[in-house]
């Protein structure tokens, strides 16, 4: 008797639950106002995924062109802002448009296979799909312009870029030895919040730039809404 009652009770409980949940799903599932469900067990990432930005250093995704900062910025001493001209004006550092590459590479090493690939993009009018290495979460408002104007050196966040992308040459029998770059761009810093805060608290540029109001600026640099959207 008791067993029957309890079984019936449970069955009733579950069927009510099921119908409620189905009704709830119907209410939620409106294609006009789509919702994104939360993953219950986010165990495995997409195949092209990386660990969420900021956790690990040494991240170096494969890039479409084996570009070498070692050669450009290091050996040839091209200033950072020659190519990354947006950094002084914009929140973005600005990956240069292909026309900037072509300024030189219309004439320089045009026979290189990699340069020919760049030229191909240029001629087709397609952007080069660079993979993002220094990626901050969407809720962070980072402005290159403020840091550059404050006098923060690029290397303080981006690391020793001039030493990155050291090339090796393989003689494949062609006219030019083929350049190979092990890691085009490596994230050397964590880009984590605590890392940002440490610099905001101690960087000497604040005292130089703000003089008497440096203390206020230090407080402002610790204010959440300075960096969070």
């Amino acid at each position: 008797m008791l067993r029957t009652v309890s079984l019936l009770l449970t069955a009733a409980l579950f069927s009510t639950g099921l119908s409620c949940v189905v009704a709830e799903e119907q209410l939620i599932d409106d294609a006009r106002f789509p919702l994104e469900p939360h993953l219950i067990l986010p165990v495995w990432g997409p195949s092209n995924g990386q660990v969420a930005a900021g956790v690990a250093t040494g991240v170096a995704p494969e890039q479409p062109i084996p570009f070498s900062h070692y050669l450009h910025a290091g050996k040839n001493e091209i200033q950072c802002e020659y190519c990354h001209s947006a950094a002084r004006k914009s929140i973005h550092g600005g990956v240069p448009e292909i026309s900037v590459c072509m300024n030189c590479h219309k004439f320089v090493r045009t026979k290189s296979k990699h340069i020919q690939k760049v030229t191909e993009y240029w001629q087709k009018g397609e952007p080069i799909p660079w993979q993002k290495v220094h990626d901050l979460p969407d809720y962070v408002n980072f402005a290159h312009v403020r840091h550059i104007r404050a006098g923060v050196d690029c290397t303080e966040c981006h690391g020793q870029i001039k030493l990155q992308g050291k090339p090796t040459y393989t003689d494949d029998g062609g006219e030019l030895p083929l350049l190979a770059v092990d890691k085009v761009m490596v994230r050397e810093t964590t880009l984590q919040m605590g890392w940002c805060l440490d610099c905001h608290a101690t960087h000497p540029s604040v005292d130089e730039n703000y003089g008497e109001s440096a203390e206020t600026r230090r407080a402002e640099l610790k204010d959440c809404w300075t960096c969070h959207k």
Partner: protein
Amino acid sequence: MNRRNFLQALGLGTGASALSACGLDYNRYYTPIEQILPYVVKPENVTPGVPTFFATSITTGPHAHPVLARHRDGRVVHVGSNKHAPLVRACVPKAALLELQRHYSPDRYKGPMEGTAALGWNDGAVPKLTAAVQAAKSAGKQVVWLGQYRSGSMVELLKSVVDKVVMWEPNGYEAEATAAQMVFGTRFLPRYDLAGASYVLSFGANVLGGWGGTRLQSDFAIARNPNGDHVIARYAHVSPYRDQSAANADDWFAVTPGSEVLVARAVAKLVAQKTGFSGPAVAALGNIDTATAASAAGIDAAAIEAIAAQFASGNAVALPGGAIGAGRAATELAAATYLLNIVGGAMPTLFSGGGYRAPIANTKDIMDLVAAMNAGNVGVLLVDEANPVHALPYSGFAEAMGKVGTTVAFSSHPDETAELCKLKMPAADTFEDWGDEEPLLGFTLLRQPAMSPLNLIHRPLGEQEQVATKWDVVSAGEVLVRVGQALGTVTAKTWRDYLRERWGRMVFDADVLAPPRDRARREAEASGAPWPPVGPDGAPVVEPPPHQDARFGAWFNKQLANGFHKNDLAERPQVLNVTGNVQWAADVAPAGSGDMTAILVPHAHVGDGRYANTPWAQELPDPMSGIVWDTWAEIHPDTAAKLGVVDRDEVEIKSANGSVKTSVEITKSVRPDTVAIQLGQGHALASMRYANGIGVNAALLAKDVDAHGAMAWSGNKVTVTKTGGRTDVVHTFGGDSDEDRNFAVVVNAEQFAAKGDAPADHPGDLTGIHHLEIDKRLTDIGLTDFYPIPQHPTYRFGMTVDTDACNGCGACSIACYAENNLPVVGREKVRQGREMSWIRIDRFYKGDETHFVPMMCQHCGHAPCESVCPVWATYHSLDGLNAMVYNRCVGTRYCSNACPFSARKFNYHTYVWPEPFNMQLNPDVVTRTMGVMEKCSFCVQRIRSIKSAYKDAATETTNFNAVVPDAALARLPACAEACPSQALTFGNLEDPSSTVTRTRKSGRNYFPLEDLNVFSAVNYLAKASFHVAKAEAHHGGGHGGGDAHGATEGGHGAEKAHDGGHGGGHDEHGKADEHGSAGDHH
């Protein structure tokens, strides 16, 4: 498992143990590697990450308005105000923002189609259209253009391509234009300048709800502001229905439907007697006596006399009936108001001829067109965003379309009419097109593309790839130019060339070339030299066309940069002469049988239906009823009692033409013998996904036009019966009364006019609010608060909300949606109380007044929400902002419970923007995910960028300590920028000269729930009313409250001036009469 996956697994372990980077991207412990896609060649003056502003104009016809489109990384993300445009105050019309969302609608036609088969432009659609036009012309059939109001070059181009131009909108200005033809002999719209008015008399036109363009709202706000000229414009509304505009009126005369014309004429007669005006206008008024008019209108004759007395006292302007006054005598009503303006002396200052002059068709013209179509006289019908199939269900338009050889839709979005067209040639919309509009005589607005036609970039995301979608649209002008080329009537190569050529001819020539040419001619005439000058060969010198002049390119670019051109016609008063006579209809009463009259009202946001498929327009609550995503029937409480219905009951409304069933909303905003229903809804078209199935089409009740061919929307008797059903209409409003909690506060208008907002001895003394007293012993030792107000080194941002200027239109709210990436949650979730609007426009009825009080986060100095957050997700920032860090929020929702203003909104779900709505998202504001609180941030992203901009004002050096001046802050947040009435003013409370600091010293300053002592950064200015008694000085209490501020806010200026003994002295006597006598020294 390959090496990569292994490393990822390793990385996950690291991530999990470091417990970091789990912010709003919580869903992705892995983030996809994003791509950086640089430009191939960077466009000039575009820097990725820096917004570019394009001066352009938005919406068409008489409503065209100059704005700045904010372009960011290839797409328009917001529409801002054009501060430099003359004749209009800097603001963003609601329609501009709705156009912005419409621009990104997923329902937009993606490209030219024949039936449902996709076509190409150059090899399909355009040749087909050209062939059809040529065939029609050779067969002697008409090529007809049916479209929304357009002016400027488009009209000229149309006239050279098509045979007949029918520019018609369902709730347009046909009665006004026809009346102008009757009275003044030309078909145009008069120009109203409300800024100088001291009495505005509307016979139904919702002047504060968009009638006549947003310019009138701004002008009225100027007229309403007594600072400077000590006059507050009084606004009287004569109409059976009180809409959002009429709710702002000081006097509402609820006349019987159709009788507005009688009242207008009776008033005009009386005014003419008072002013002694004589002339043809008086004669044109015909015979009418006050008593007859009063009895027909159902109001006292004394009321008419009072209106006339007010009107005759000068600076008065009368406005016609608009959509609500469109009864059986719609045209006569417009004519009567013109005559009233003339006899009242409004012409030519407040009422003049310098209005809109482009074609305006009557509904009768549509009916004629239908007849012509049925007769087979129309070979090609071109439809441009006009939807007579839906708006005029009895016109037989849909059937007639079948009898037209080729029907072409230029509409960019599907609607009932466009869907029936055989050929769909979706035109580039307002953000992708060139064009111009002339809303006022001599005031021309340019339109330029602010972005290249919409397309979704191919972007790999995870393992699934988004298919590239491109909206393959071409400007309607471009198509017409090509057709014109084929016909041989147009020589320009492109639509842009056509525009430039016309601007060269019409504007540049007059502006730049004509003055020296005239001078040369005068000199030639004086010296007897030949004119035009002759060359060495003796032949007259042929000047090149103006647009080929060497200076033209630079000149045109300058006009483009401005977005407008104004010549002296715009400023010169255009006097109108009464040339015709008016045949006054004998019977103005609604037709049909029934004991009620249906007032068909364009929906406050959806309008005549053009924004029905725009989620923002649907989600924004109706200003008066708070209803969203629906139509409803407004019924007077007495009538409801008679019918035995309550709110949300279903009723059937039946006219001679048809019937609709809809929900009851009981309100005192209608006369007992009328029922008001919203137009614009009731679409049943799957391709309009947001409009589909929303409400009913109230146009089913109306069929007839008046004697002059204008649609008589509100001229039908109906019977209302209870069906017994219930509806699921969704309200967003709670109580109608502010329960005397000082949300809605009035000042006596005359008192306010006399004093203005000049610093008062006792801030807030005009409002008559009794403040809680603070013991003198406490104020003496400065102990009014447990804790001092936080220190702010440079800024404490604050806002002033002028509830007298606010008319409840909702532009601020939509601007906020656009700027801050607020999701639209849809009808079902609004029912559950989940609307996300950061600005809630509270509507309160109090006394004779309807108050619209925009409530947003008050950024309190002592914010109750901050101290309760366990994780510091909300805190008081250095700039005095009540900051909310979304990605720190865990979602306890305690802050929302603590907020006395209920200003916080919670993300119940992770909302997704269906593509391409996501392209409108502001990249400076993160989209929030489920479980976090959000609220007004005073547009912190704009504050951040303007602070940065002032630091970088000099290109080479950086002034790190630059302070943003008040002028640059006043309209900084999106809401303040959008407000047509400039009711919202932003600024720095630490700056003693800023507007926000000054208004805090005004006599009508008040803070809602001030006694909670939260030290809001938002102060409110009371609404002026002609119906309240003058406030007695209320020193005792007032001082107590004031002193609290003076003592605790320290350096906030004048409030300090009356601390100490002054306030305390009065506090000692607690009696009202003593306060009264003490108040005399004001």
